[in-house]
C-alpha cells in the first residue's frame, strides 16, 4: 500500500478520522433539510472528542454519515470522510498507514460492513430499544464476534463473557442467557457497550449514551467508558447536549449549530476561553450552584430555526447578541484558527467568508 505524504502527517498528528467539508442533505416531501452544511472535523486518535449542540444541529447525522448508516432519503452531497488505520510493521519504526475514504464506499458493500463493528462502532441513546428483544444478550454480542473475528460459537461465548466482565456485569455467565427486558437500564447500556467493544474497534461513536439514564447510573457508565477507553486506547466521539458530561469526559470539544461546527477546541479552552457567541451562550445557560435563587435562567434568545428554511449568512446571527449587521447576515464566516487546536467560525475573529456561500 502506498503511503501518501499526507497520511503520514495525519498519523503523526494523531488523527484517526478526518471529516472534510461534509454536506449531508435529507430529501423529504416537505423539502430539503441541510442537516450537515460543511462540517470539517479532525478526530484525534486515542482521545475523547465531544460533539455538543442543541437538538437538530446535526450531531447524530455526523456520526451516522461516518458509519454510512444514513436512511435512504439522505445523501452526502459534498465532502469526504477518511479513516486512517495504523498498521504496525514488525520491522523498523516506520508506521505505514492505510487510509480509506469512507464516503467512496457503497453503504451496502462488504467493505463498509467489515469496517462497521470491527473498526467503527456505535452505541445509541435508548438502551431499551437498542437491543433486540427477541434474542438473548449473549446471542447478540456473540453475533458480532462471530461475524468479525471468524471464530466458532464456543470461542465467541468465551469472548462475550470476557467482555461482559470488562464492562462490569456482576454475573456474566447468567447475563449471557438473559433477554434485554430482564435487565435494568444501566445493565442494558453496559450490554450495548460490551457489544460495541466486543471486536475492539478503533473508534466508538457514542450518541447520547447516558441521556436516558438516571444520574447515578450515568455516573457509573461514564466512569466505565473512561476506564475502557484508557485500557484499550480507543477513540471515542461522544455526542451529547450535556455540557456537564462534556467537562467530565472529553479531551476535545466541537460545538455544532445548524449543521456546521462553530467552535472546536480542547476542553479547557472551550470552558474557560470560548470565543464563539453560541458557545458562550450555552455556557451561560447552565444553572450553576451558588447562583441567587431569584435569578432567571439565561436562555438563548429565539428558537432553533426550521431545518427546511435557509438562512442567509451566518446561521446563528438571528439569535446572536453580537452580530454585525451587513456582514453576519450576508456571508458565512470561514474557519479561523485562534490558537493551536482551537478554531472558530465567526466574523468577530475574521474577515474571511467561506468560499461557497451556500445558504
Amino acid at each position, binding site marked *: 500500500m502506498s503511503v501518501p505524504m499526507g497520511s503520514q502527517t495525519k498519523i503523526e498528528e494523531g488523527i484517526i478520522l478526518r471529516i472534510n467539508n461534509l454536506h449531508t442533505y435529507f430529501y423529504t416531501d416537505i423539502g430539503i433539510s441541510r442537516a450537515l452544511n460543511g462540517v470539517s472535523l479532525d478526530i484525534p486518535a486515542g482521545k475523547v472528542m465531544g460533539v455538543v449542540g442543541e437538538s437538530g444541529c446535526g450531531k447524530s447525522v455526523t456520526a451516522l454519515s461516518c*458509519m454510512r*448508516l444514513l436512511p435512504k432519503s439522505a445523501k452526502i452531497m459534498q465532502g469526504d470522510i477518511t479513516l486512517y488505520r495504523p498498521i504496525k510493521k514488525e520491522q523498523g519504526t516506520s508506521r505505514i498507514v492505510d487510509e480509506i475514504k469512507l464516503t467512496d464506499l457503497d453503504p*451496502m458493500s462488504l467493505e463498509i*460492513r*467489515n*469496517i*462497521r*463493528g*470491527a473498526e467503527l*462502532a*456505535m452505541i*445509541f*441513546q*435508548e438502551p431499551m*430499544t*437498542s*437491543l*433486540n*428483544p*427477541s*434474542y438473548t444478550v449473549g446471542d447478540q454480542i456473540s*453475533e*458480532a464476534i462471530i*461475524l*468479525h473475528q471468524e471464530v466458532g460459537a464456543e470461542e465467541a461465548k468465551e469472548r462475550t463473557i470476557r467482555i461482559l466482565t470488562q464492562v462490569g456485569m456482576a454475573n456474566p455467565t447468567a447475563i449471557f442467557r438473559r*433477554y434485554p*427486558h430482564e435487565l435494568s437500564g444501566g445493565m442494558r447500556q453496559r450490554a*450495548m457497550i460490551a*457489544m*460495541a467493544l466486543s471486536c475492539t474497534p478503533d473508534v466508538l461513536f457514542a450518541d447520547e449514551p447516558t441521556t436516558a439514564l438516571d444520574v447515578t447510573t450515568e455516573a457509573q457508565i461514564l466512569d466505565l467508558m473512561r476506564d475502557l477507553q484508557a485500557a484499550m486506547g480507543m477513540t471515542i466521539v461522544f455526542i451529547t447536549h450535556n455540557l456537564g458530561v462534556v467537562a467530565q469526559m472529553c479531551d476535545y470539544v466541537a460545538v455544532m449549530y445548524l449543521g456546521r461546527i462553530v467552535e472546536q477546541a480542547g476542553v479547557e479552552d472551550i470552558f474557560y476561553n470560548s470565543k464563539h457567541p453560541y458557545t458562550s451562550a450555552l455556557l451561560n445557560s447552565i444553572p450553576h450552584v451558588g447562583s441567587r435563587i431569584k435569578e432567571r435562567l439565561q436562555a438563548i434568545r429565539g428558537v432553533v430555526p426550521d431545518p427546511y428554511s435557509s438562512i442567509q449568512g451566518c446561521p446563528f446571527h438571528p439569535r446572536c447578541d453580537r452580530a454585525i449587521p451587513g456582514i453576519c447576515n450576508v456571508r458565512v464566516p470561514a474557519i479561523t484558527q485562534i490558537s493551536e487546536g482551537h478554531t472558530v467560525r465567526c466574523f468577530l475573529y475574521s474577515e474571511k467568508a467561506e468560499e461557497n456561500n451556500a445558504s
Partner: protein
Amino acid sequence: MGSYILRRLGYMAITMVIVTILGYIIIELPPGSYVESEIARLRQQGGNLAPEQIQSLYKRYGLDQPEYIRFWKWISGFVRGDFGQSFAYNLEVSQMIWSRLALTLVFSLLSLIFSWTLAIILGVYSATHRYTIPDYLITVLQFIGLAVPNFLLALVLMVFAQDVLKMEVGGLFSSAYVNAPWSIGKVLDLLNHMWIPIIVIGASGTAWLSRVMRANLLDVLNMQYVQTARAKGLHENVVIWKHAFRNAIHPLIMVLGGSLPGLISGETIVSLVLNLPTTGPLYVNALLQKDMYLAGAFLVFLALALLIGNLGADILLAWVDPRIRYE
C-alpha cells in the same frame, strides 16, 4: 412455559363447556323438532312410524324430558362417540362427519400455509421496497383480494380453469380417476383439483395478512435495534430476516388465532361451489333441512378445532416472544 400451557388449557376447557351449551341452544332454536315434523309428515302421507320406533326416538333424544336432561344426554353421547342420528340421511352422525371433518382440516391447514407464506413474502417485499411499482401493484392486488367474495373468486377461477386451461373442475378427482386405484396419475389429478380451493380459501386472508405484515415490518424497521444490527456490520438481508422480521411476526401470530375462523368459514362456502366432500356442503344442507343433530355436531366440532388452533397459536406466540411467557 409449561404453566402457561396449563393455564391456557384450563381456559380452553371452560370455553369449551360454554361452546357446547351455545351449540345445543342453536340446535334447539328452529321451531319444532325434526322428529315431530317428520312424524307429522309421515302421518300426512298416510304412512306411520311404528309406535316402537317413535318411542325409541323419543327415548333416545329425551323429547319427553326437561331441557337439561336432553342436554346432558347429548353431551354424554359425545364422550361415547354417539352424536345422534342424522334425520335426513338416517345414518349415525359419527359415520358422516369424520372423513369430511378431516378433509376440511386438511384443506384449511394447506390454505393457511399457502396464504401465510405468500403474505409474508409479499408483505416483506412491499415494506422493503416502498413506493416502487411492484409495491403499488401488490397494494392493488390486496384491495381486490379483500373485496372479492371468495365464492365468486372460486367461480371465476373455475371458469378460467375450464375455459382456458381446459381442465375438468369440481370435486376432488376427475371422472377418470374417481374410482381408479392410487397411482402417480391419480396423485397429480388430486393436486390439480386442490390448487383452486387452496388459493381461493386463502385469498382474502392473504390480502389482509400481507398488509398487516407490511405495516408491522415498517414499524419494526424504524426501531433502534435494527440500526444497531446494521451498525454491527451485518448484511442487510440478515438485518431484515433475522432481526426485523422476528419481531414483526409477533402481531401476526397474535392474529393467527383470529384468522382461523375465516379459514373454516371460507372453506364452507367454497367447497359448496367446488363440490368438495368436506363439511361445508353437508353442513349447509343439514341446516336447510333442519337436520339439527348433524348441523350441531359439526358446529361444535368446528368450534373445538378453532379452540385448539388458538391454543396452538398462543403457544407459538409464547415461544417466539420471550416477553409473553411471564404474563
